């Protein structure tokens, strides 16, 4: 039992005694490992989703949730497995990933080049910044009709829409990253005798990298959003096609699978960027401390 000792104004509590003591009463019947059992936090975290899934499943079984509203979890799982095994899911996934990555890499490249031009030169800013700011305010999906007229309804339009969506977050963030470099560091670089090229390479670019990554994350999110949209117009492959096809056949299980895929891929790509940051920004206090 707890024991309190009071002497000479000091005070201590001894709690260790309890664990050593022999069990008393009914608790003697429960084995030791079970008495000391502590539920891992992971299991506790999973508890509410599992309960929710079970309730959903039960409601579907009992006919409380009709299948045309949403399929039962067991059915979704079965369909998912079948699509993975047949390779159908893999095929569509690959097409979607290619579209997203192609659009994203073109968009990010344009954003980076434009930001370097406007960020590093006053004249570049005067010439290029206002058109970029004007274009930025147009929602890229509003360009769909025009793009379809110009480029037809094929692959080019789809990629072009992802490009227009992903250029600006990178542009804006990198531009402000370049302009917000601590002027004291620039001054220090000047007293150290760095020329302009060295200043850009050793000070400005590494200093604006964190801002670039912020932009890259936004762009990634937008590329995903644009993908969902463009894949529902006149496509024969891709996750978006899968979803719109499923809608026509009222396959709620397939639609849910598509949603799952989008969210899992989004998480994966975000994880990838985090890993990239960990390497590229190893110098940042938040990374070096741990």
């Amino acid at each position: 039992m707890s024991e309190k000792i009071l002497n000479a104004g000091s005070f201590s509590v001894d709690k260790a005694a309890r664990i050593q003591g022999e069990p008393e009463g009914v608790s003697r019947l429960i084995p030791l490992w079970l008495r000391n059992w502590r539920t891992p936090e992971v299991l506790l975290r999973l508890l509410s989703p599992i309960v929710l899934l079970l309730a959903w499943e039960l409601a579907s079984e009992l006919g409380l949730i009709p299948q045309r509203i949403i399929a039962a979890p067991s059915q979704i799982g079965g369909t998912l497995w079948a699509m993975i095994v047949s390779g159908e899911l893999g095929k569509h996934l690959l097409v979607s990933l290619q579209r997203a990555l192609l659009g994203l890499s073109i968009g990010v490249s344009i954003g980076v080049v434009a930001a370097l031009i406007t960020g590093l030169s006053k004249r570049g800013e005067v010439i290029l910044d206002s058109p970029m700011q004007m274009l930025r305010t147009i929602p890229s999906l509003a360009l769909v009709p025009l793009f379809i007229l110009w480029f037809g309804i094929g692959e080019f339009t789809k990629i072009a829409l992802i490009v227009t969506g992903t250029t600006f977050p990178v542009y804006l963030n990198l531009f402000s990253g370049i302009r917000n470099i601590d002027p004291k560091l620039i001054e220090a670089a000047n007293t150290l005798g760095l020329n302009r090229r060295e200043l850009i390479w050793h000070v400005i670019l590494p200093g604006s990298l964190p801002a670039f990554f912020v932009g890259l994350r936004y762009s990634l999110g937008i590329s995903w959003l644009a993908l969902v949209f463009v894949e529902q117009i006149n496509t024969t492959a891709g996750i978006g096609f899968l979803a719109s096809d499923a809608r026509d056949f009222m396959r709620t299980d397939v639609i849910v699978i598509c949603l799952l895929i989008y969210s899992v891929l989004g998480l994966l790509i975000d994880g990838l960027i985090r890993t990239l940051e960990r390497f590229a920004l190893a110098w940042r206090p938040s990374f070096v401390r741990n």
Partner: protein
Amino acid sequence: MSNIESLAAPVQLRNVVRQFGQQRVIDSLDLDIAPGEFVALLGASGSGKTTLLRSLAGLDSIDSGQLRVPKARAAVFQEPRLMPWKRAWKNVILGLRIPDAKERAVQALTEVGLAHRLDAYPATLSGGEAQRVALARALVREPKLLLLDEPFAALDALTRIKMHRLIIELWRKHTPSVLLVTHDVDEAILLADRVIVLAHGKIAEQLTIDLPRARDTGQDGFQAIRARLLSLLGVEVDVPAAVGQAAVSGVRRFAHG
């Protein structure tokens, strides 16, 4: 002043003026710093100290007058101003175009007692360590003129004492001319050969400090110089009678100009 002498002084200012709008921050200033001389610059805020140092560092221009400084000069500021994305040794040799760069960086960091922190990122360095890296970065360039802009102001008292010793040691080894801008009167007396008090962009007073080194604040004559400088800066201090007597002679002994 003879021609040979003027060639010898690495820093020469003649009638230098720097003004922002109507306000003359530096007003017809004349200043020579001899080779290897350690000069401390005192003055209230807004007296033009920092502006002067920035002009000497080439970070600011002057409006009229003549300013001659050696090309080989380096500056250490109140903040270390290290590039956070570069490891300590890369910071040291930043901007140097020499083949055996790493070797020189190791050498310079060893000199300031940081041989074990070569690969550290600035974020992991303590304030004193970061300032020592900044010092190594300045000295690795073998400057003829070392500009120090309150480099110890942000350090704790104990670290500051160590840094004072280090700076004297390095100054003796590399023998650059030094211009130290500081608010700390004790620091100025401890370190400098000559203390200049700047007021309204002009030299109000300069004292040659010929106290023997290594100096300490308890030294004979130290308190007298301190009281004199503080009164020039507008702070009156009571000097005990016994010391006061020494103070008068002290001032007479050390006052200059």
